[in-house]
C-alpha cells in the first residue's frame, strides 16, 4: 500500500462534477473563426510567422517561440489567416493580445510532423526538444512551457515525476474524462515524460472522488513498476502543486524554490496526453478537452475543443443558457478567472468554462471579522489570513509580508470558508501587487541614485582631466614664453656683444 502524507487545512466545496463526469467527451463542431492568441503561456509571447491571406494546415506553425521560456503556437484547423491583430485576451482585464485569426475551411488537412520511431529510446533532451516544438505547456491552468520543466528535472537530477490528476476544483471533469477514456495514451505520455525527465518513478495522484479514472489508469499502468497510480484524499486544494508534492512525497517545496530542487517534477495528466499525441502521432498542441459547466448552462458536457474557439461557441453547443449567468469563468470557481466577454477564445490553459448562477456564487454582504479563525484552520499553507487582512486593511503591507503574504498560494480556501464573507484572497492579491510595485519603485530609485552617483564621478573625472590639461597647456605656454624670452635675451646679448666687438674693432 502506498504511504500517503497529510496536507494541512483545506476545504470541501460542493463538487458539482456529476453533470459532466458521466458524459463522454464530444467533439465540438468547428466555429466560423478561431482567434489564436500568441501569448497563451508563461514567458515571452510567440512571434507570428504567417501573413494575412495565407492558407495554413492544421498543426502548422503560426507563431514561433521566443527565447528560453516560451512556446510556439500552431494552427488549430486548416484554413485561411484573415487577421493578425490585437484582440481581447481571456483575462479579467480584457486587454488586447496579439492573435492570429483563422477562418477554417473544414478540410482539416494536417501539416506533416515526423514522429520518432521509439521515443523511449531517444535521448531525453531530444524528447524535450520535441515537446517544446509541439507547443506543449502545462494544461492544468498555469501554462508553463513543459519542455523547460522537463529539462529542469533532467538537469536537477529528478528522482520522481508526479502526474497531477487531482482536479480538485469543483465542476471540472476534463481530466477525469480524459483518464477514463484515454488512459492508455495518458500512461504512454507519462512513460515518455518519465524518460525525458530522468525520474526513476512516476506517481499519478488522483483524488479518490474519481474511482473510474483511478481504475482505468491502474489497468493501463499494470505491470509497470515505474508508474504508480495513487488515490489521494479528496480535499481542495489537493491539486495544487505544493499540496500534491506534499501528499505524495511527504516533502515540502522550500519557500521561493521550485519542486525540481527537491528532485520532483510535476505535470498535469492533460500534458502527458499532449506529449503522447506529439511524439506518437506528430500532432502539436492545437486542441484540448474543456469542461463546459455551471448551473446556468442548459446541458453541461466535455468537449475536445480547437484552441482559439470563442467561449460563445462552447455554450451554444451546450444548448445555451438555462438562466442568466451571474458570471462566466475560465477555470474552476475557486481559482478561475472572471471573463469579460463570451468572445474571448479558449487557450491552452483552459480547463473549463463555467457559467455560474447567482445562487451558486452565494455572494453575501461583507461583515466584520470576529476572529473565528476558520480561515486559519482552512489555510493549506499555515498562514493567519485574519491577521494578514487586518494589516492590509491598515495599508501595512510590510507587516502582512512578515506574516507570510508571499507564501499565499491564492487557493481561496479562506475566503470560501469565511462566515463574514470577507474577500480575503482579494486583499492578499492586492497587497502582493502593492509589495511588487513598491519593490519595483525602490529598484527604480536605487537605480536612479546609482546613475546619478556614476554621473557625478564621471563629471568629476572630466573636470579633473580638463583641469590637468589646462595646467599642462599653461605650463607649456609658460615654457614657450620663457624659451622665447630666453631666446630674446640671448639675441640681445649677442647683439650687444656684436656691437661691443664692432666698437672694439
Amino acid at each position: 500500500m502506498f504511504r500517503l502524507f497529510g496536507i494541512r487545512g483545506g476545504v470541501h466545496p460542493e463538487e458539482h462534477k456529476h453533470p459532466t463526469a458521466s458524459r463522454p467527451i464530444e467533439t465540438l463542431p468547428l466555429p466560423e473563426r478561431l482567434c489564436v492568441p500568441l501569448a497563451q503561456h508563461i514567458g515571452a509571447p510567440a512571434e507570428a510567422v504567417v501573413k494575412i491571406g495565407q492558407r495554413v494546415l492544421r498543426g502548422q506553425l503560426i507563431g514561433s517561440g521566443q527565447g528560453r521560456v516560451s512556446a510556439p503556437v500552431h494552427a488549430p484547423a486548416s484554413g485561411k489567416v484573415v487577421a493578425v491583430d490585437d484582440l481581447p485576451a481571456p483575462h479579467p482585464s480584457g486587454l488586447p493580445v496579439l492573435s492570429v485569426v483563422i477562418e477554417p475551411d473544414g478540410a482539416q488537412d494536417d501539416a506533416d510532423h515526423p514522429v520518432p520511431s521509439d521515443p523511449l529510446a531517444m535521448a531525453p533532451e531530444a524528447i524535450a526538444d520535441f515537446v517544446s516544438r509541439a507547443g506543449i505547456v502545462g494544461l492544468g491552468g498555469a501554462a508553463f512551457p513543459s519542455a523547460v520543466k522537463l529539462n529542469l528535472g533532467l538537469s536537477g537530477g529528478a528522482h520522481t515525476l508526479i502526474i497531477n490528476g487531482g482536479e480538485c476544483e469543483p465542476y471540472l471533469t476534463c481530466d477525469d474524462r480524459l483518464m477514463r477514456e484515454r488512459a492508455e495514451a495518458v500512461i504512454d505520455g507519462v512513460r515518455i515524460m518519465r524518460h525525458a525527465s530522468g525520474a526513476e518513478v512516476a506517481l499519478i495522484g488522483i483524488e479518490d472522488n474519481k474511482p473510474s479514472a483511478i481504475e482505468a489508469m491502474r489497468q493501463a499502468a499494470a505491470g509497470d513498476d515505474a508508474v504508480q497510480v495513487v488515490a489521494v484524499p479528496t480535499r481542495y486544494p489537493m491539486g495544487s502543486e505544493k499540496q500534491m508534492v506534499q501528499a505524495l512525497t511527504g516533502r515540502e517545496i522550500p519557500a521561493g524554490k521550485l519542486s525540481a530542487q527537491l528532485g520532483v517534477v510535476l505535470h498535469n495528466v492533460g500534458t502527458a496526453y499532449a506529449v503522447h499525441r506529439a511524439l506518437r502521432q506528430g500532432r502539436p498542441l492545437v486542441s484540448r478537452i474543456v469542461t463546459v459547466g455551471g448551473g446556468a448552462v442548459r446541458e453541461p458536457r466535455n468537449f475536445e475543443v480547437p484552441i482559439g474557439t470563442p467561449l460563445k461557441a462552447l455554450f451554444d453547443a451546450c444548448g445555451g443558457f438555462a438562466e442568466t449567468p451571474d458570471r462566466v469563468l475560465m477555470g474552476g470557481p475557486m481559482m478561475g478567472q472572471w471573463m469579460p466577454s463570451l468572445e474571448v477564445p479558449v487557450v491552452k490553459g483552459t480547463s473549463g468554462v463555467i457559467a455560474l448562477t447567482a445562487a451558486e456564487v452565494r455572494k453575501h454582504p461583507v461583515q466584520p471579522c470576529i476572529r473565528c479563525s476558520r480561515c486559519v484552520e482552512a489555510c493549506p499553507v499555515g498562514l493567519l489570513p485574519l491577521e494578514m487582512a487586518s494589516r492590509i486593511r491598515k495599508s501595512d503591507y510590510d507587516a502582512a509580508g512578515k506574516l507570510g503574504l508571499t507564501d499565499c498560494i491564492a487557493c481561496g480556501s479562506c475566503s470560501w470558508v469565511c462566515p463574514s464573507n470577507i474577500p480575503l484572497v482579494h486583499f492578499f492579491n492586492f497587497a502582493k501587487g502593492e509589495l511588487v510595485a513598491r519593490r519595483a519603485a525602490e529598484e527604480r530609485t536605487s537605480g536612479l541614485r546609482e546613475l546619478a552617483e556614476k554621473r557625478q564621478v564621471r563629471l568629476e573625472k572630466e573636470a579633473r582631466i580638463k583641469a590637468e590639461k589646462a595646467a599642462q597647456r599653461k605650463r607649456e605656454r609658460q615654457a614657450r614664453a620663457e624659451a622665447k624670452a630666453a631666446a630674446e635675451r640671448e639675441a640681445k646679448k649677442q647683439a650687444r656683444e656684436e656691437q661691443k666687438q664692432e666698437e672694439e674693432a
Partner: protein
Amino acid sequence: MSAPRLEGRPPQAGPHTHAPRPRLGDMALVNIALLPAALWAVYLFGWPALNLLLVTLATALLAEAASLWLAGKPVRPHLSDGSALLTGLILALSLPPWAPWWIGVVGGLFAVVVGKQIFGGLGQNIFNPAMLGRTALLVSFPLEMTAWVTPRPLFTEHAPSFVEGLRITFVGLPDLDAVTSATLLDTAKTAVDQGGTIHGATGELFAGIHAFTGLTGGSMGETSALLLALGGLFLIWRGVIGWQVPAAVLGAVALLATVFHLIDPDRYLHAGHHLLSGALVLCAFFIATDPVTSPATRLGRILFGVGVGVLVWVIRTFGGYPDGNAFAILLMNALVPLIDHYVRPRIYGRDRRGAPLDTGKEGGR
C-alpha cells in the same frame, strides 16, 4: 435563452463560490445554547430575575443601536448580528438574580459602549465586553454584586409574586440580609481566612447534585452546571467553538485543585467543588471561547484556556474575591496579542523561524 451581455459588468475576484451560509450564524447558536440555562435561572429565581434579564438585554441592545447611530454605521444589520444580545445575556447571567434594575443598566451600558463600541465595534475589542461590564460593577458596587439569594422557584410557596418581583427589581429589597445566603466559594474563603477548615463550612451547604442542577445560590447563570455544559457541548458539536478552550480551562482548574487538595484537604477545595461552583462552566464554554478576544490558533487557544484556568484557581484560592472568572478572562484577554505573535502555525516550505527549508535531495522515497 440568448447570450447574456457580460460587457460592462464590473470584474469579480475569486473564489467565485462560497461555503453555504448556515441558517443560524455562530452568534445565534451561542444565544440558543445559553437559553436553557437562562430560562432555568428565571424559573429558579422568579420574577425579579426575569426583570433583571430583560432590563439588561434591552440596555445592551439600545446601547448598541445608539452607538451605531452615533458612529454613522447602519444600525439594523449590525444590531441583528446577535452580538449585543449575547453580551447582554452573558452579563445578565453573571449578575445576582435579585440585583436592582440599575445594575443591569450600568453594566449593559459599560459592556457595550466602553467594552465594545469604543474599540470600533464588533470584532475590534480587546476585552470580553460582558466580563468588562461585570468587573466594573463588582468593583463599583460590591454590596449589590454579592447579594446572593437562595433559589425560590416560580409558583412555589416562598417565591415572590409578580408585583413583589417588580418591587424587588425596581424599588429595592427591604431587607437584603433576610433573603441572601453565602455561596460555597464565599463560605470556603471566609472559613479559610478565619483560620478554620473548609469541611465544616461547606459540609451542609454543598451537595454536588445541587450545583449540578442549579438548586443553589449564585448568579443567574452560575447555578446550573448541567445546562451550561450541555449548551457548551451543543456548540462544540455544531462546530461553533472548539473543544480546546473549555478542556484547557476546566482541565487546568481540575488539575491544580486536585493536586492541592491532596496536599492539604483542610485548606483547598477539591476539584468537584471548583468545577461545579461559581461561573466556571459558563466561563469555560461561553466566555473564554469568545473568538474576538481569544487567540487565533489552536495551540494559542489551549495556552489561553490554561491561563484562564490557572488564574481562576489562584484568585479563588489566594485572591481577595471568592470567584475570579471575570478577572482571569480580562487578564488573559490582555495577553492574546502576545500569544498570537508567538504562537503561529509553521508556514509550508519554511521552518518555525520562517527561513526556507533545506533543498537536500537525499530524502527522496
